[in-house]
């Protein structure tokens, strides 16, 4: 069984899920992809919106979507560097 994900990994998983869907995703799809409870997902997405990594848009009425921003994409690049750095030194 995989170990408990760290906050950094959860944020990466959320951003990757949005990016892999062409940069835009429905909340229901994100809930399924991120493997989180509804409340946890809302909390994390809210934090990402506050940090300008994700934007919330409404294309039609009752059709909310999350969009990854440039800052969110930059985080994914930095994440890979940090992960590689951490794994290299094992801490």
């Amino acid at each position, binding site marked *: 069984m995989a170990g408990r994900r760290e906050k950094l990994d959860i944020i990466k998983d959320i951003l990757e899920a949005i990016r892999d869907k062409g940069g835009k995703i429905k909340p229901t799809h994100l809930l399924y992809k991120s493997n989180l409870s509804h409340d946890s997902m809302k909390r994390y997405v809210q934090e990402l919106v506050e940090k300008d990594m994700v934007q919330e848009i409404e294309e039609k009425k009752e059709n909310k979507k999350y969009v990854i921003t440039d800052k969110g994409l930059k985080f994914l*690049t*930095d994440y890979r*560097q*940090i*992960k590689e*750095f951490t794994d*290299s030194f*094992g*801490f």
Partner: protein
Amino acid sequence: MILVLNGPYWFRGFDAILGILFALITFLIAAVSYKAYKITEEKKYSYFSVSFFLMSLAFFLTGIFEVFLTTHVWDLLSQWLSQFDLVFLAHMLLIFLAYVSLLIITLKITDRKVIALLFSLILLFTLFSYQYYLKFHIISFLLLFFLSYQFYTNYLEKKQFNAKLVFIAFYLLTCAEVFFLAIMYDQVLYVVGALLQLLGYILLFYVFVQVVYHGGTKRKT
């Protein structure tokens, strides 16, 4: 006695350059870790950054001082500092603090009592010490040996190319200490030690380049 200057006379200029080169490499690694800290806000990255920054400071200090001594610039200051072996003592303390911090981070020691004990021992070893050169290299050898073993364990766990390079780099730094200790038999052994150290730091620089420019690209071991 000027403890900063060791090895054959002809090697002293090169030794100063190596010191400054090691200072630059360790500073770059400290900078990457600091960047990781700014992004993640996780304290372990800031501690890692501090330990490499301490190494950088130690090498910069001795490197610059060796330049003063070998070029006879600022002779008065050099004589005064060397009279009390201040530069070597500072180098010793900074390197010990850096290695112990690295051990604490890589071994994931969280017990504050153990951390306090380790730092107290290091301070005592440095402040109440004689035969500085011998003690410095024996303790450095021990600390680097444990660090190498930890990086080897990490390599076995992760099976990543960079993890292997980090282990080899620290293994070379550990071997270098043996040659530094053996200079009582032949001064040329100091040069061998310095070259092993150079190889070790070149490998660490290569890891830095891999992380910064190719971070995330999968490579086989």
